[in-house]
C-alpha cells in the first residue's frame, strides 16, 4: 500500500478521477499508516472511522459524476482549525476538551470541495513555538533522522504535526497556519513545501487566534503543484472575517508552467546573517544559479530593517496574544480550576493551570508592552518599525518580481536542544518573520540535503496577492532542485 500513500495530491486526484483507485482504498491506506506512525505523535485526534465514512460518501458522489476539486482526497488538519463536533485543542490544556459547535471557513471550503479529514495534527501550544515542543500533548518527532543516527529531531513548529504527517506520508497534504514562520520553517526542515498566502487571502474565521494581524492559514504539501491546488480551495472571500480581502482567486495550478524567463529575482543582501549554517548560504547560492539558468534576471536588493524584524515581532505578536487569549477565563468554555474562592481567583487559577510556560511568558510580555507607561516605548515603536519593514519590501519590489532567500538558518535540530533559551528558539524565524510583518506571501521549497542527510529549503517571497507568480517561481526552483528524497520509515516496523 506504500505506493498509495506516497502519491502526490495531484496524482491521487487524477487517479480517483480516472477511477483507477477509490477514495476508500486511498483513505484506508492513510488510516493504517497513521496508526503505525503513532511514535511520531503527529496527531492529537485521529479520525479514522469518520474518514472512512467520508471516503465512502465521496466515492458515491464520484460515481454520481461529482467533479469537486478535492473529491475523496484525505487531508490532515492542524488542530488550530475549529472542526464542528471534533475536538479542537490548539495543543493546550485550556482547550483540552473543547468541541467547536462551528466549522472554520478554510476547512469548510475543503469539505465543500469533497476532501476527507484524517485527523487533527499536533502543534506548539496556541501555535507559539518553532519546534512543536510546547504542545500540551507532547512533542512531535521529525520523520527525518541524520545519517547513522537514532536521535529524535524536531519537525519544526508551530505546524509540526502537519509537517511530520506530510513528510511521513500520513496524508496527501495538510493545513497549517503561519504567524512568524509556522508553515514555512516546519516544511523546510522536513523536506516539503509550505505556503503562507498573503494576509487576507484565506479567511481566519474559526481558526484559534494567536496574533490576528499576522496569522494566516496555508497549505503544507509534497509539491508546489499540490500547494497550488490546495490554495485555490482554501482561499475565499469571507463575510465572517472582516480582514478577508475581496480579490479574485485564480486557478494557480494552470499558471504554474509559464517558466521564469525574464522574471526579476531579488536577492536581499541582509539575509546573509551571522549564526546561519554555512549550508544555508551555499544552498542559497545554488538557488540563484538555478533561477539564472532558467532565464531569470538576478537583482541585488536591500531590505535595511531586516535585523529589527524579530524584535518587532516579539512585541507585536505577544501584545496581540495577550489580548486574544484574554477570552480563556474558565467561564464560557475551556478548562476551569477547581474550588475557586471568588471570580478573580477562578480567572487567575484557570489561566495559570491551563496555559503552558511559553504561552504564559508571551501573555506577560504582551501585557507589559501594552501597559500604561510602556505602550509608547514598546508597542507604538514596534508598529512604526513594522511600517518601515513593509516599506523596505515595497521599495525592493519596484526592482524585482519575487525574492529568493534561505528558509531557515539550519536543518532540523535535536529535541531539547533549544528549549533552555527562548531567544535561541526565536531565531528559527529570522528569515520568515519579515514576511508576516509585511503581510506578504512566502513559500518554502525543498532544495537539498545537508552533509548529514537532513533536508533544507529555500524561501521565495512574492508581492501581495501575487501568489500566482510566487508559485510559478517556486515550481521552477523545485524542478531545478529535483528533490526526491523521503525519510526512512523507522517508526513503522
Amino acid at each position, binding site marked *: 500500500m506504500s505506493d498509495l500513500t506516497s502519491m502526490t495530491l495531484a496524482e491521487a486526484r487524477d487517479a480517483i478521477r480516472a477511477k483507477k483507485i477509490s477514495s476508500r482504498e486511498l483513505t484506508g491506506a492513510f488510516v493504517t499508516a497513521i496508526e503505525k506512525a503513532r511514535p511520531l505523535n503527529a496527531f492529537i485526534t485521529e479520525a479514522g472511522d469518520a474518514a472512512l465514512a467520508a471516503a465512502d460518501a465521496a466515492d458515491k458522489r464520484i460515481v454520481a459524476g461529482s467533479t469537486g476539486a478535492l473529491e475523496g482526497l484525505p487531508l490532515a488538519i492542524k488542530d488550530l482549525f475549529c472542526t464542528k463536533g471534533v475536538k479542537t485543542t490548539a495543543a493546550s490544556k485550556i482547550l483540552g476538551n*473543547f*468541541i467547536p*459547535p*462551528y466549522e472554520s471557513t478554510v476547512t469548510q471550503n475543503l469539505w465543500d470541495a469533497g476532501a476527507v479529514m484524517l485527523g487533527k495534527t499536533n502543534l506548539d501550544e496556541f501555535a507559539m513555538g518553532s519546534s512543536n515542543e510546547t504542545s500540551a500533548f507532547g512533542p512531535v518527532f521529525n520523520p527525518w533522522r541524520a545519517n547513522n543516527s537514532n536521535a529524535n529531531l524536531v519537525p519544526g513548529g508551530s505546524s509540526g504535526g502537519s509537517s511530520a504527517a506530510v513528510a511521513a506520508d500520513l496524508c496527501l497534504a495538510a493545513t497549517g497556519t503561519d504567524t512568524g514562520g509556522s508553515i514555512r520553517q516546519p516544511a523546510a526542515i522536513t523536506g516539503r513545501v509550505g505556503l503562507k498566502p*498573503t*494576509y*487576507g487571502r484565506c479567511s481566519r474565521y474559526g481558526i484559534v487566534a494567536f496574533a490576528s494581524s499576522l496569522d494566516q492559514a496555508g497549505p503544507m504539501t509534497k509539491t508546489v503543484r499540490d500547494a497550488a491546488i490546495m490554495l485555490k480551495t482554501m482561499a475565499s472571500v469571507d*463575510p465572517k472575517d*472582516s*480582514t478577508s*480581502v*475581496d480579490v479574485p482567486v485564480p486557478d494557480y495550478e494552470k499558471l504554474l508552467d509559464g517558466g521564469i524567463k525574464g522574471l526579476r529575482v531579488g536577492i536581499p543582501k541582509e539575509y546573509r546573517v551571522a549564526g546561519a549554517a554555512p549550508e544555508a548560504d551555499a544552498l542559497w547560492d545554488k538557488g540563484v544559479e538555478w533561477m539564472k539558468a532558467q532565464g531569470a534576471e538576478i537583482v541585488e536588493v536591500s531590505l535595511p*530593517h531586516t*535585523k*529589527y524584524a524579530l*524584535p*518587532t515581532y*516579539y*512585541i507585536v505578536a505577544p501584545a496581540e496574544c*495577550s489580548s486574544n487569549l*484574554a477570552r480563556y*477565563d474558565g*467561564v*464560557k*468554555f*475551556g*478548562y*476551569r480550576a477547581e474550588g475557586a474562592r*471568588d*471570580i478573580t*481567583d*477562578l*480567572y*487567575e*487559577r484557570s*489561566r*495559570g493551570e491551563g496555559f503552558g510556560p511559553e504561552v*504564559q*511568558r508571551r*501573555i*506577560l*510580555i504582551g*501585557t*507589559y508592552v501594552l*501597559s500604561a507607561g*510602556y505602550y509608547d516605548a514598546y508597542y*507604538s*515603536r*514596534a*508598529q*512604526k*518599525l*513594522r*511600517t*518601515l519593514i513593509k516599506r523596505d519590501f515595497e521599495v525592493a519590489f519596484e526592482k524585482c518580481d519575487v525574492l529568493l532567500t534561505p528558509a531557515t538558518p539550519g536543518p532540523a535540530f535535536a529535541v531539547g536542544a533549544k528549549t533552555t*533559551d*527562548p*531567544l535561541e528558539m526565536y531565531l528559527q524565524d529570522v528569515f520568515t518573520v519579515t514576511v508576516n*510583518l509585511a*503581510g506578504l506571501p512566502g513559500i518554502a521549497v525543498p532544495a537539498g540535503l545537508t552533509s548529514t542527510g537532513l533536508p533544507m529549503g529555500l524561501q521565495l517571497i512574492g508581492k501581495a496577492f501575487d501568489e500566482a507568480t510566487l508559485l510559478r517561481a517556486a515550481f521552477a526552483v523545485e524542478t531545478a532542485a529535483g528533490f526526491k528524497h523521503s525519510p526512512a520509515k523507522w517508526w513503522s516496523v
Partner: protein
Amino acid sequence: MSVDKDTVRRIAKLARLAVPESRLEPMAGELNGLFQWVEMLGEVNVEGVVPMTSVVAQKLKWREDRVTDGGQADAVTANAPGGEDHFFVVPKVVE
C-alpha cells in the same frame, strides 16, 4: 528599563494569571533577556513614521445592521465548564 519580581507580580495580576511565587524571579530574568534584546529598536529613527494599523490597504467592510444569526443558546453554552439553563455559572460575585 529592568523588570523585577514586583513588576512580574503586577503584570501577572493585570493578565489575570496565577504565577506561583517561586516563578516570579526566574520569569523576571526571562523577560529581562527579551527586553534587553528588543532595546535595539531604540536605535532606529522613527520620527514621522506612522504606526501600522493594517498590513493590507483596504477599507473596512460595512454591512447592513441587521440580525444574521442567533437563537443558538444550546451551542453557545455547550462547552461551558459550569452551566445551567443556558446560563454560565460562576462563583458568587456580589455579597
